[in-house]
């Protein structure tokens, strides 16, 4: 009798527990039934390793996001074809950040809490990366951005890595390039006052440029009319005009600058790197120089293999965003392999000690978890970016 009662208790408890379990899994369609409890290790407990990816698939920066996604999907396919990570297939779960920091945070939280990813690639943009980094740090989920160049991103903590160089590095590189290769004596800057990326590059350029900065002007995010600022810059007649912004603004600024009679050479960072630059900017963006991480014309073995694989899958050349996000994913996958675990701390340690050659060349991490690598300078010609030179500080 007593036994029966205990039995009944146990049964009813078990029943309640299983209902509770059901409700939990109903909430998130994509998470597996094993998700109850033990949040950190569940990604490994299925037969796939889940990796999150935060990227702008819509919005004015969607062209970056879509390229990045293609690069990462190519990696997913290749890794799984070769047997995955230690026998487990990887699954990339992409979520749209719309290019907004707030949306990136929500998207990242969904990946961590609902999808139970073991690490996050991205976010693609600096602003989103800055916003999401503290959250990944809090959950001990390694975050590795392939394209977030703002200096502050990796200061959020030891979970945050990047496989590209930083804004100050790009500003420094362009200052060096302007002085040494373009023989520029004077420069002017026009930056976006509402963008971390733009401000970061502008400040670094300003402090690294050895010539004279004749004028620094700014505008508000969303402005389309730059006549006032450019009219003010024109009489200074600078040798170079540094434009640390994204392609849409660059194209409109370049057109306006030429129409107010500015003859300076336009230079900038990887925000220039989009085919849309030419469709909006036309002739005004011919003969401009910008720093970036990668060029499809680069003749190294890694680049040509990557270009071949990418072409086979999608047709057309991969842009820098595709290559960089591919690299970030590759560094992460190799580190998970080496760590032999999907535990956040183990992946973190493997990443810190990483040294290897990916598409953009040899990568190691410095003590601030930023990649140490070379920059590529691109020159635009006939509506296309051409590999110009490779440069280190």
């Amino acid at each position, binding site marked *: 009798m007593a036994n029966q009662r205990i039995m009944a208790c146990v049964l009813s408890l078990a029943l309640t527990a299983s209902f509770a379990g059901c409700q939990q899994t109903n909430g998130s369609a994509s998470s597996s039934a094993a998700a109850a409890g033990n949040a950190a290790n569940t990604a490994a407990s299925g037969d796939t390793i889940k990796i999150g990816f935060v990227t702008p698939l*819509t*919005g*004015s920066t*969607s*062209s970056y996001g879509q390229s990045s996604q293609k690069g990462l999907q190519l990696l997913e396919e290749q890794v799984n074809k070769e047997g995955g990570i230690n026998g487990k297939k990887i699954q990339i779960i992409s979520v749209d950040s*719309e290019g907004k920091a707030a949306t990136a945070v929500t998207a990242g939280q969904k990946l961590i809490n609902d999808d139970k990813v073991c690490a996050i690639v991205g976010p693609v943009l600096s602003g989103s990366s800055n916003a999401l980094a503290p959250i990944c740090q809090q959950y001990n989920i390694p975050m590795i951005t392939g394209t977030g160049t703002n200096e502050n991103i990796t200061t959020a903590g030891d979970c945050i890595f990047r496989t590209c160089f930083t804004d100050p590095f790009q500003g420094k590189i362009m200052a060096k390039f302007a002085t040494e290769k373009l023989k520029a004596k004077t420069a002017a800057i026009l930056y976006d*006052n509402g963008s971390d990326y733009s401000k970061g590059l502008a400040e670094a350029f300003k402090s690294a440029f050895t010539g004279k900065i004749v004028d620094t*002007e*700014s*505008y*508000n995010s*969303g*402005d*389309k*009319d730059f*006549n*006032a*600022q450019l*009219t*003010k810059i024109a*009489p200074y007649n600078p040798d170079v005009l540094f434009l640390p912004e994204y392609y*849409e603004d660059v*194209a*409109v600024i370049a*057109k306006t600058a030429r*129409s*107010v*009679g500015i003859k300076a050479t336009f230079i900038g960072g990887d925000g220039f790197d989009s085919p*849309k630059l030419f*469709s*909006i*900017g*036309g002739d005004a963006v011919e003969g401009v120089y910008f720093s970036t991480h990668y060029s499809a014309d680069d003749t190294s073995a890694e680049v040509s293999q990557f270009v071949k694989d990418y072409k086979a899958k999608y047709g057309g050349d991969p842009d820098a965003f595709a290559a960089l996000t591919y690299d970030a994913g590759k560094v992460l996958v190799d580190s998970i392999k080496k760590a032999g675990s999907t535990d956040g701390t183990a992946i973190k340690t493997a990443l810190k000690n990483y040294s290897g050659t990916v598409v953009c060349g040899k990568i190691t991490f410095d003590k601030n978890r930023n990649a140490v690598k070379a920059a590529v300078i691109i020159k635009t010609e006939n509506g296309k970016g051409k590999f110009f030179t490779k440069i280190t500080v």
Partner: protein
Amino acid sequence: MSFVEFLQQLINGLSLGSVYALIALGYTMVYGIIGLINFAHCDIYMVGAYIGFFAATSLGLPFVPTLILAMVGSAVVGVLVERVAYRPLRKASSISLLITAMGVSLLLENGFNAVFSSTPRSYPHNILQQKNITLGPVHTDSLHLIILGVSVLLMILLQFIIYRTRIGKAMRATSADKDAAALMGINVDWVISVTFAIGSALAGAAGVLVGILYSSIDPYMGIQPGIKAFTAAVFGGIGLIPGAFLGGLMLGVIETFVTAWYSPLAGAIGFIVLIAILIVKPSGLLGKKASEKV
């Protein structure tokens, strides 16, 4: 600032202001007739830019038919919005109507984002050749002159319609007293539809011109110019057509000079100047002192 630079910035300001003026005309017209601040107006402007974009690319139409198609298309959307969203609420409080207008605005923005994605699209380069025009030491370009010209033309046309035609008389009557106008045999619904059609056609025209001017359009393109144009309309004296025109131009000039003086504070200082002027003259530049009707 040298005299030449001053002159050049003045021209820049007038060019920017002509864009605001063109959008402000539609705001002020709808407000003048039915007392509604139509927040969806700046999204009709975006809709017009998209209609023009598809007319120019998919249909391959040249500039003038593109502009006409965009104006007609925007007018239809504007009338539809009034019919579906505003008319059922005509007897409701003005706050309900205002909130509905915001709802329509969000619906259009996010609806277009969902259907067309927010990837910016660019008008074909050859639709309207942008020519630089040099006048002595200063210069401008043909497109800004066209926008300024279109604003002036439309302002005169609107004044003519409102003060010299039958429908204009009906509009003014409706504006003064809807019920009394209906008693006099004026079809108030029809008059309001026409008001929305004209206002929206103006927004559509502005959308196409600005789309060509800045080369790129996206579903959220209306927000910023919308706020500026609304400010311009209030600044000039809302409900007054010459006021919207003058307000737009002045806002553009003030903004440009503040930017030229110290660009990081352009947005903030421009608006402080406007607020200061409104404190001195609350009904706007051309507004008469409003006396409460009893």
